Structure formats: structure tokens, C-alpha cells
């Protein structure tokens, strides 16, 4: 096949990649790809030419992954990183070729670029559809005019029924509710969260969780601190990292791509930061915060996604503290007390205060890490305050997706997504489970 001029040009462009995150895989790979040149993370499979699956996709989600796969325009290919391919469940006859498996995350950027070149030069066939080429419901030749519909609103014209009326939560106009399921690979939602949603206009009428988000893997430092002496500075540095990553995702959702990537660049190399580096980090985070404050990043969240005391209590962690609760496992631990730790709080409990709280905790954690690093403080405690909630020997931070069902209805889509991004909805896990 002759390679056209377009394809030759295209081979030099940044590769548009859609990432589907699976289980047990923190968003590290996605964050890494964000910062890599010549790779462009896109929000929808329509804009991508490669589908990158990170981590293991559970069987229940493989159908959704197949849907995403088929939505990519040709030419397309799939790369599996850190998990086994799961498409056999759908298309048994078509075993994926071994070359699509990527062993380590470091190889991934290189493999992405190679695969794209092969696709464009025709060396590699574009992957065919996994799902059968059938309409969602048979319609041809049925109904009054052969369009599959009946009467005014009935039947399934062109394969789908029409939306039906539902009472509204806000202004009492009874109009059609748009029902669909969203996720588990929707960009603005935590990976794995799938919900069936009913919208009227922009407002969410119903949010039914179909599957909870994949549990996030807690950095092993926090687990270690339950059992043995761990440098307190490490704990705090990891806290900074997780918080910054969460903030970066919020920024990306607000369209602040540049700030998000800058934040990720700060967060990426943190685990091996030196004492001297901490001072510089403190300054950089400070200037980032100032930059964001001037651009209205915090003010944007004012009055959005307010939690009541009960919900905040349930969530705990920084969410509780953003709501004004003086609860922190660190305040009961001696080494922290010795370092002069005090609980910092916000008062409102909306997205704005959660964003402020995250930044405040980042600053605090950097200061604590610097001090603890100098004094080489070690810590073992039966209750550890992780960035996503409280951790004890018996209990990990829990999954809170159930709460969304009562929290999100009545919000507009944008507000709902901003709220979701500011909450640690997913539970935590570590290898081998908790028992």
C-alpha cells in the first residue's frame, strides 16, 4: 500500500492516545504520558489513534472497554501495559498479537511512537471492531414508516427509543430526561466508576452507581508505618505527592492544562527529593498557588458541592478538615506533636475549601517533612492519616461512591464533576488485600 503524503506527515505528529486505566494501577502512567513530548493525551477515543490500557481490566468492565475500542477511528491499535488483554471474552477467535503487550511503563512512550509509525505506514493492520455490526435494536422495516417507530413517541426509531418525560427537581417543568450510563473510562470521573445517570437539561436527576471506582493503591510507606518505624519525612512527602496529583486532575478538568502539567512535574520526582530540594519545592508550590489564586482557580469552586457534616464525617481525611472538623490521626501521634503539628481547617466544605485545604496541607506537609528530615524522626502508629483518609491495621480508607447517589442529584453536570474530582471517592487497596 502506497503511503500517502498525509501519512508520512502524520507519522511525525504527536501521537493522540486515549488511556483507559484499570485496576491496581495508580494514574502514574497517565501522569507520565501527560508530561511526555510527542504524545498527546486526548479526552475522547474519537480523537485518538491508540488505545492504551493500563493495569488489569476486570471482566465486568471488558465490555465497556470494547465499546471504547470500537469508537476509535481507523487506523487504530491497542497497547496493554501492566495487565493482561481482556478482549478474548468478547471476540474469542481473535487473540491479540503479543507485540501489543508492553512490559514496563518506561517502554511505553517508545512503543506508542513505534506502533503509531507502523499503523500509518501500513505495516500494521488497523484493528477491526470487537462488537458485531448491528444496530442497538433492530428497526429496519418496522413501524409506521419503516423507521422503526410507532405513533408519535413510541417504538424504536433507528434502533433506539425516545427519551421520556420525568418530573424535574428544580423548576417544575416536566420535560424529557436523558438517560445514559457513563464511565468507567470517562475522563472526568475516577477510573472504574460507572453510573447510570438521568439528566434533564444540565441538571442531574438521578445518579445510580453501577460499579464503584477501582480502588487506588496506597503508597506502601503508609502501610509500613503501621508496623515498623518509618521516616516521618517520607510519609509527608508522599502526602504532598498524592495531593498534588489530585490537584493536577482538578486543574485539567478546569481546562488549566499547563498548570496541571507543571504540578505533575513537581509531583513526579518527589520520592527521591533531598532536604535542599524541599525548600525549593515550598517556594514552587507557593508560586503555583499564587498563580492559581490570581486566575480564579479557587474562587471557581465557591458554593459548589457543599457537604453536610454527616457526609464530611463519613469521608474523613482532608474532606472533613475542609468542612471544619478538627480530626486528624496525626494529632494523636507523639512524633507529630513533637514537631508542633496542628490541624489546619477550612470552614465551608465546598469545592473551594477543599482545594484550599489541599494546598494548605501540601504546604504543611512540606514544612513537616523538612523539619522531620533534619531531626530524622521515625514513626510507628496504629492510626495513619493517609492522603485519602484514615488507615488502621484493620481498616483501609473505604469506597464512598454510594454517597454520590444522594450528593450529586440536583447539581449541574459541571458542578458534579468538579465535586467528584475534589473527593477521594475510591477506596484504597494494597497488594494481597487487607485481611
Amino acid at each position: 500500500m502506497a503511503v500517502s503524503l498525509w501519512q508520512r506527515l502524520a507519522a511525525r505528529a504527536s501521537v493522540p492516545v486515549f488511556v483507559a486505566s484499570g485496576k491496581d494501577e495508580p494514574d502514574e502512567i497517565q501522569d507520565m504520558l501527560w508530561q511526555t513530548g510527542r504524545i498527546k493525551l486526548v479526552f475522547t477515543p474519537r480523537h485518538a489513534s491508540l488505545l492504551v490500557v493500563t493495569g488489569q481490566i476486570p471482566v465486568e468492565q471488558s465490555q465497556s472497554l470494547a465499546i471504547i475500542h470500537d469508537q476509535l477511528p481507523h487506523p487504530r491499535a491497542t497497547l496493554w501495559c501492566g495487565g493482561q488483554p481482556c478482549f478474548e471474552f468478547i471476540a474469542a477467535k481473535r487473540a491479540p498479537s503479543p507485540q501489543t503487550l508492553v512490559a514496563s511503563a518506561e517502554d511505553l512512550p517508545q512503543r506508542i511512537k513505534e506502533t503509531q509509525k507502523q499503523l500509518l505506514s501500513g505495516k500494521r493492520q488497523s484493528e477491526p471492531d470487537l462488537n458485531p455490526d448491528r444496530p442497538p435494536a433492530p428497526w429496519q422495516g418496522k413501524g409506521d414508516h419503516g423507521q422503526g417507530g410507532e405513533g408519535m413517541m413510541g417504538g424504536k426509531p433507528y434502533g433506539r427509543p425516545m427519551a421520556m418525560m420525568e418530573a424535574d427537581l428544580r423548576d417544575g417543568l416536566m420535560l424529557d430526561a436523558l438517560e445514559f450510563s457513563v464511565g468507567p473510562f470517562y475522563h472526568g470521573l475516577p477510573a472504574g466508576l460507572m453510573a447510570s445517570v438521568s439528566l434533564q437539561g444540565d441538571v442531574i436527576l438521578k445518579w445510580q452507581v453501577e460499579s464503584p471506582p477501582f480502588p487506588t493503591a496506597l503508597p506502601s510507606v503508609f502501610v509500613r508505618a503501621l508496623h515498623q518505624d518509618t521516616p516521618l519525612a517520607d510519609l509527608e512527602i508522599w502526602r504532598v505527592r498524592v495531593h498534588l496529583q489530585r490537584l493536577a486532575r482538578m486543574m485539567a478538568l478546569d481546562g488549566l492544562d499547563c498548570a496541571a502539567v507543571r504540578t505533575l512535574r513537581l509531583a513526579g520526582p518527589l520520592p527521591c527529593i533531598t532536604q535542599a530540594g524541599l525548600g525549593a519545592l515550598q517556594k514552587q508550590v507557593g508560586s503555583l498557588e499564587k498563580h492559581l489564586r490570581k486566575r480564579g482557580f479557587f474562587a471557581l469552586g465557591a458554593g459548589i458541592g457543599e457537604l453536610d457534616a454527616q457526609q464530611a464525617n463519613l469521608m474523613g481525611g482532608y474532606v472533613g478538615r475542609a468542612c471544619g472538623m478538627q480530626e486528624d490521626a496525626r494529632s494523636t501521634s507523639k512524633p507529630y506533636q513533637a514537631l508542633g503539628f496542628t490541624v489546619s481547617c477550612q470552614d465551608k466544605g465546598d469545592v473551594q475549601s477543599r482545594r484550599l485545604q489541599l494546598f494548605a496541607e501540601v504546604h504543611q506537609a512540606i514544612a513537616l517533612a523538612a523539619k522531620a528530615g533534619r531531626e530524622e524522626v521515625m514513626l510507628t502508629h496504629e492510626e495513619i492519616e493517609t492522603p485519602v483518609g484514615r488507615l488502621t491495621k484493620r481498616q483501609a480508607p473505604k469506597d464512598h461512591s454510594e454517597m454520590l447517589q444522594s450528593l450529586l442529584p440536583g447539581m449541574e453536570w459541571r458542578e458534579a464533576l468538579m465535586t467528584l474530582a475534589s473527593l477521594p471517592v475510591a477506596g484504597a487497596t494494597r497488594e494481597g488485600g487487607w485481611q
Partner: protein
Amino acid sequence: MILNELLLPIFVVLITLILGAGVVDYLHHATSALGKQMSLRRSLNPLAPLYRLGLALSQQSVITEHPDRLNLRLAPALYFALAALGLAVVPWSADFIPADLVTGMVLWGAVEVLATVVIFLCGWSANAHLPLLGAYRYVSLGLSYMLVSMFVLIGVALPAESLQLSAVVESQREIWNVLRQPMGLPLFLIVGLGLTFWGPLDFASSPDLDRGISADQSGASRLVWQLARYAMLVAFSFMAATVFLGGWLGPWLPGPLWLVLKATLVLLILLWMGHNLPVMTPDKFISVAWVLLLPLSFVDLIWAGALALW
């Protein structure tokens, strides 16, 4: 005569839009890459827009289930046509004006409003929910920024005593409107962000809708939509440069060059805003537009009126 008065203007307008769209694409990605502290050599590569063009053209254009095909095709074409219509009334020099309409300002207002229709049509006709939500959000924006734009432009028409853009440029011989009416340009820039759903006012293809209107576009159909959007940004920059920065007026250099330079400046400001400001929440923007921006544009008009009489 035909050549000079008919073909040349058409050619100039279309070439400006297409080349301009390339420049917008280049500047947009280059500034974004610089903001992300990517490698300098790669982010400044002048051929990058061509690569992206190649990529878009080697991809298939997916069409959603049972769309309104006619409107899906027409929307990008009409959006681009509106950009062309807007640019057509902009004077390049004292004697080269593609279409010197007596009511150029009113026509620009019409372009803004018709753009709302076209963007809505683009989102509606895909018959998919994310584009649909994007389209409706955009209409809320389009209907609210429009009045601001018209007040600001009328403020500019007062000292010129005309709605003709060539007269507006002439009225800026002594002092540019950006200095004479200091609130005009900032308000008009907000209008520009709205018109091209750019940066903080990107309601139609916002990240929380996974790119909304564009969520189900790919390949060539996405390319033409992007082209039209960039072209509109170009047309707006030229308009803003003409109305507030004295258009082709300027010493030493020839008029058209001045115009291009000023338009590039406006473009860079818009791109900077796009990278640095968060996307507003759509429901807050209507309040802001009607309760804050509209009164501000009233004040701008009163200021312009008082100054014109004095």
C-alpha cells in the same frame, strides 16, 4: 476591474483565514507546550501544524448514529463562512476594503449571533448527548455575551459618527480607541473568547464534557470544524485590531502589515487567556454577563458618549 475589485478581495480574505488558521494552530500548540515546559525545539517546530493536518487526514471520520447529516456537514462550512463574512468588512488600507459596507458594525453583530446558531447546529445534529449538552451550554453563552458586544461596538461608532469600519479607523487617527475607551477592548476580548468558545468560555467543548461538541468528531470532520474555529479567531483578531487598535494606521510600515501585526497581538492575548484561565461554570457566566458585564458596557457607552460630545 473584475480582477481588482472582485477576485482579489475574495482571494485575500480566504487566504488570510486559511493561513491564519495555520498560524493559530501553531501558536496555540507552541504556547501550550511552552507552558508545559516541554522541549523547546519540538514545541517551536514550524512544521508541526502540517503534521497535525496529516494526522487528521489519515484518520477516518466517524459519524454518530442517525445524525442530522445535512446540518452536520453544513455547520463547519457555515462557521467558516461567517468568519469570512466578518473578515470581509475589515479595511486593509484606505483603498483596499473587500466589502465596504455602510453598516459593517451591524454585520459583525449579525456574524456573532449567527455563529451561535451554527455552533448550536453542530452540537445538535450529532444526535449524541455530550455534543448536545455542549451545544445548549454554548447558546446560554452566545445569548448573554451578544449584548455586551453590541454596546461596546456602538460606543466605538459614536466618535466615528458612522457604522462603517473605514470611518471607525479614520476616527482613530489621533488616538486609538483602546486608549480613548479603556473598557472597550477588555470587554470585546471576552466577546472574542465567547465567539470562538475559547479558554475560560469554552462551554461548548469543555473538558468536563470530554470535549462536548467535538467529542464525537474525528478525522476530516474534526479538522474542518477546528479550521473554522481558528478562522473565526483570526477574523475576530482582525476585527478587534481594526476597532480598537487603529486598524491599518501606523507609521513607517505599510497599512496591511500594521493590521496583521496588531491582529497577531490580539491573537496572542486571547491564546494567553486560553491557557491561563480556568473554564467558568456555565450557570455563573449568565449572571456575570448580565449583572456585571452588561452594566460595565453601559458605563463604557456613557463614557464614550460623554467623550464624543466633549
